């Protein structure tokens, strides 16, 4: 489902205008960006957790050439699926 379709679905189910929905989506996006840049995690019940994880710098060795590369530290945004959703997904 694309963002547009999601906006349409929610505006219909909540009986609100699309502009209101877009406003709320924008606010959600801003909150997620703000929290992730602070390395916080956002927990959504029955869905999972969105969190920013910091990886320290590391040295990687190319097995073929033997050259070592210093990989810089980085922050990645990850999602961990909740057990409820996992069970629902794997229901026979």
């Amino acid at each position, binding site marked *: *489902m694309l963002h547009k379709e999601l906006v349409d679905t929610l505006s219909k189910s*909540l009986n609100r205008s699309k502009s209101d929905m877009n406003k*709320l989506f924008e606010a959600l*996006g801003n909150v997620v960006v703000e929290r992730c840049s602070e390395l916080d995690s956002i927990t959504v*019940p029955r869905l999972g957790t969105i969190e920013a994880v910091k990886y320290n710098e590391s040295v990687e060795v190319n097995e073929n050439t033997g050259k070592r*590369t210093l990989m810089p530290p980085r*922050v990645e*945004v990850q999602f961990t699926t909740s057990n409820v959703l996992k069970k629902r*997904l*794997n229901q026979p």
Partner: protein
Amino acid sequence: MKKTIAFPQLVELVAQKANTTERMSELFLQELFAVVTQELTEGKSVTIKGVGTFKTVKDDSGKDVVFIPDKDLAEAANAPFAQFEPLELCDEVTDEMLREIDASMEQPAQNENEEPEPTPVSSNNVGTRPASSEDNTQKEDTEPVSPAQNQEEENVGTRRALSEPAQKEPQEEPQDAKSRNPRVWLIAAAAAAALIAVWYFYTHRSKERSDKATEVTQVAKDTTNDTKNVKPKPIVTDTISGSNVIFTMAKKHYGDQAFWVYIARENQALYPDYRKIPVGTVLIIPPAEKYGINSDSKQSLKQANAEAMKLYKEVKAADKNEAKKDEDVKVDEKSKNVTTKPSKKSSLRHSHYKKHQKHYRHR
């Protein structure tokens, strides 16, 4: 840092951002996540603008959800490290050196946990520093100002000296006027020719003088204008923060992060170890001309890298010295403990003496 935002907090934050009621925000989020869960269970993907895409993937272990963050979100989260690039290590860098760096980086991290947060630094002061180092910075700060001031003073002096003849001129005129008194008319009519000659001579000379004087005043004016134009450049500063580190500063001010070493050098008197500059510190950004910084020149980049290696070695040497000192202190403490610790025998003797103190006194 490292907070967990629960659903009620998320509702509150979204309501604040969207300027709506918390009830509206809660309904929206509940409905949104219900739709997302429904779509995922049906094996479809969902894209939320500004957040990312959720997809279901089938593995050997079963179905799971994969999240691909939105480009803006990923960039914002990784902003503090965005300027770093993978670096191929040369053969000179041994594994031992890397281990040493790791160890030295772990130490300050431990200290940071123990110590309270660094005090915020006012924009006027350049960090918290000892008094002796402050003097050095004051000298540095005044350096660009003092030559200009001296120049101005000199120019003022020259202006005065040069303007003197111009002021004397009008005084000379009446004297010559006196010499041109009607007495000349009494001497002889023949002297009239001589008088004309004298008059001609005087006018010619005064003209020359006045020309010279105007030239001199013009030169003086020019020099004063120059000194006015050559104002001391304002000192550029920048503050260390989570996303604004010494490397980002170099990229921002010089166009390449390789020039970070010159910022470190400029502030070395206050912060000898560039790796341990606390957040909130205001650093002086030296002018690019001072170190010949040119991001387009390969030679300038090479020089910066060489300087960085030099600084790295200096810092490592300082680390080693500190480690040695710590070891010496530990050894001293151990030896002190050994000397002060009473032996078993002596402690027994002491307890025995305490027990029979009276008896000993009596004897």
